[in-house]
């Protein structure tokens, strides 16, 4: 948490705008005309979710399951509107069938932001186990994914990955590592 906060505060000079990780994600979504954001919440994603709700450019809402959110943005894409799904590692673990039967074979540029739990100070054994399933599932379907650890790389990776997903009509997972976000620790 301390590293992420230092990174955030050191780059947020007066008048330069908010350079927090969540502000960068929001601005990058907006710049790429991604306006539909269904999510299943996560503690670490809370500042991003709050700022998305506060910005009328976005239609942001909770779904009961991550699969549902993937279905919604897939339908929206086919209808001409871009979306992205926010979730936690454990939520990603519910998606293998939907990725393999909808997003990948129909060539839908599904954009996923996954808040990574299960590593770098995890306190729940189940979270650390389910985290280990995430990259093997992504790799087994040859889905592009990046683990973002540095604030100075966040905008580049996010912006380029969104553009690549759209132009190649392929899903992408952007994994937000605790080195970027601070993660969730036991005393929270």
């Amino acid at each position: 948490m301390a590293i992420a906060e230092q990174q955030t505060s050191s780059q947020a000079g007066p008048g330069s705008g908010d350079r927090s990780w969540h502000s960068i994600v929001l601005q990058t979504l907006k710049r790429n005309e991604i306006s539909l954001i269904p999510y299943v919440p996560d503690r670490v994603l809370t500042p991003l979710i709050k700022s998305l709700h506060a910005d009328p450019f976005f239609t942001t809402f909770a779904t009961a399951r991550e699969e549902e959110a993937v279905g919604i943005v897939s339908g929206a894409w086919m209808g001409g509107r871009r979306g992205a799904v926010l979730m936690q590692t454990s939520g990603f673990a519910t998606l293998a069938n939907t990725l393999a039967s909808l997003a990948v074979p129909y060539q839908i540029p599904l954009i996923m932001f996954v808040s990574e739990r299960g590593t770098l100070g995890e306190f729940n054994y189940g979270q650390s186990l389910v985290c280990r399933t995430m990259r093997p599932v992504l790799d087994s379907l040859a889905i592009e994914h990046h683990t973002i650890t540095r604030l100075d790389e966040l905008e580049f990776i996010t912006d380029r990955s969104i553009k690549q997903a759209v132009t190649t009509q392929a899903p992408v997972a952007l994994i937000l590592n605790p080195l970027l976000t601070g993660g969730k620790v036991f005393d929270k």
Partner: protein
Amino acid sequence: MSARNTKVMNRFDVTSRLIARLKREEAVIGGIGNTNFDLWAAGHRPQNFYMLGSMGLAFPIALGVALAQPDRRVFALEGDGSLLMQLGALSTIAALKPKNLIMIVMDNGIYQITGAQPTPASGVADLVAIALGSGLSNSAWAADEEDFERLVDQAMAADEPSLIALRIDDKPGVGTTRRDPVQIRERFMHGLGVREPL
């Protein structure tokens, strides 16, 4: 509201009746298996989308289309077993209230395509009561074919999302959808005016 007073109809027949009433390039999302087989058999339209997996996502996919194109009516055809996979989606739709979304549930109480095993809800749960309890106040059982057509007409003029449930028989689907996901998606996007063919 009670399913007990409704006639047992046929999926292909009611799907054909629905398609015959569509005059304004309405989108139709067909859930997996028999639901989209009968949609296919009723005659392919450019505004039809056929699911080849992702059981339970017909309503969420239709919701996405409805949010992207608020001026187009969007229908979703789903089986009872599929709906049981994603009951939470009903609350999501109730919360967002897309007035252009019309959900149709084909309820035979069985997983017909896998060997006609009864669903856990069969004879126990009332899917319209579940929809009403999820916040979808414009939900009803169709008493018979004419009532179904009347409910469809009402839904096309409604200012809130609609859910229509039908009791159907245990017959399999009439046709078999061509399983070509990229073509299905691409042609659907052409049908919705999102893209032009190459």
